[in-house]
């Protein structure tokens, strides 16, 4: 009973208490809604906007998140394989990756928009840029974490290099890849929002910027809540995929 309470009821109860406290304190101290809207204000503001409009903004952002995320996966995993395979490429490409990663993404976002135009492309690129470094690093670490004995076994069988990667190294890297996938899915949401701040006519990030410029703070909060929800949902989705399809990759007792 105690364990079940700690697992399920306690987090939900904490959340409810915080929302109630927020509502209560805002009422008691009469905080103006453009400074800090009450939860009830946010709900009302959310209801004031048409569903189809919310969905339009949500879809605009989600599109960028998903395209950027999957593109990033499609680039980083093959890149990690190449880096694991070649010392020369590893020496030449990795320093460049570090430079890209060290560049504040928010700082280059406007430059990317100028270079690539104000369409979807720059937003996808920005999302890619923010997500792909952790993926490359984690995947490379995973590919290199394969026990040496298995590589020796592979070599003694004179198996093609492709099979060494497909049947040994990549599956071994799965736990590493998933830990990066979990981090990156939330980073992808950040990337999409940053991109929308810089140049967009639609999307939840754009909406927050637009609403705050008009002091429609409750509505901005509503957009923020949706963003958090999207982020959490995507994270849960990645966790689900890992548990469903790669249960052996989890530490014992988790599944």
């Amino acid at each position, binding site marked *: 009973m105690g364990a079940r309470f700690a697992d399920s009821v306690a987090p939900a109860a904490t959340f409810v208490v915080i929302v109630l406290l927020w509502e209560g304190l805002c009422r008691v101290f009469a905080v103006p809604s453009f400074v800090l809207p009450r939860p009830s204000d946010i709900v009302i503001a959310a209801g004031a906007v048409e569903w189809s409009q919310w969905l339009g903004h949500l879809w605009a952002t989600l599109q960028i998140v998903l395209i950027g995320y999957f593109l990033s996966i499609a680039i980083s995993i093959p890149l990690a394989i190449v880096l694991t395979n070649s010392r020369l490429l590893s020496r030449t490409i990795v320093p460049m990756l570090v430079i890209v990663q060290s560049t504040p993404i928010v700082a280059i976002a406007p430059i990317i928009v100028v270079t690539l135009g104000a369409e979807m492309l720059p937003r996808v690129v920005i999302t890619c840029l923010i997500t792909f470094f952790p993926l490359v690093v984690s995947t490379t670490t995973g590919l290199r974490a394969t026990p040496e004995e298995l590589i020796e076994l592979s070599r003694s*069988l004179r198996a093609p290099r492709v099979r060494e990667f497909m*049947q040994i190294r990549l599956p071994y890297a799965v736990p590493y890849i998933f830990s990066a996938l979990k981090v990156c899915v939330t980073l992808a949401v950040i990337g999409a929002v940053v991109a929308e701040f810089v140049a967009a006519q639609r999307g939840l990030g754009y909406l927050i910027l637009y609403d705050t410029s008009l002091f429609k703070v409750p509505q901005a909060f509503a957009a923020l809540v949706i963003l958090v929800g999207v982020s959490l949902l995507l994270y849960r989705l990645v966790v689900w995929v890992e548990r469903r399809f790669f249960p052996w990759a989890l530490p014992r007792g988790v599944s």
Partner: protein
Amino acid sequence: MAVPVISLDDVGQSFVSRDGQRLEALAGIALSVERHEFVAIIGPSGCGKSTILRQVAGLLRPTAGVVAVNGLQVSEPRDDIGLVFQRPTLLPWLRVLDNVTFPMKHKTGRVDDACRARARALLAKVGLADFESRRPDELSGGMQQRVAIARALLQDPDILLMDEPFSALDALTRDEMALELLRIMDETPKTVLFVTHSIPEALLLADRIVVMTARPGRVREVMDVPFARPRGLATMEDPQFNHLANEIRQQVFSRRVA
């Protein structure tokens, strides 16, 4: 006399370390193993025992001398050799049966029914007939190592190279596994090179024991083990057993003290 299955002639191995220093791991190793002979290599850690196995498997090219299998110099990795490592190193995402058939899958890209049948027979031989659908992490360390042994035997290799295969197991399981290996080798004799640092294990299993010294690794003594086969627990109670164990222990130690 017939050509020995494994022969090492004046074999040396040196490595260049990161700071450019030359490290001699093995020097002047001469050794030959006859067909279906069980040879144990024993010595302090760092004496290059495992290096010898890697040379025989063709995973490492000796920097001096000649390593030959069936009279032919080893120049590339060979797949007619079964490898068993210190850790079971099974693939955690594959069932036990698929782990046993993995060498075939990895080498040819597919596994046929005959291969699966052979894998089942091998699992029965190592006492894991009922476990073929389990995942490796559901098995104990000893059971995992049995699977690794079955995997090594899949292609019915004539040569089995075992690199401290039982040293990661607890003492009881270790003895059990050694007796198990004795039984398997009685049923299907192989030419075995067995690296260990357990003297009783070497005495129980081997026909001959190669005692090595370290830095660089050299053969100090090759000793015949006189116990008749089949061997078993009773072999360890032979008064000669302790006597020989002490003798080997002294040889391993004498050099280190000097």
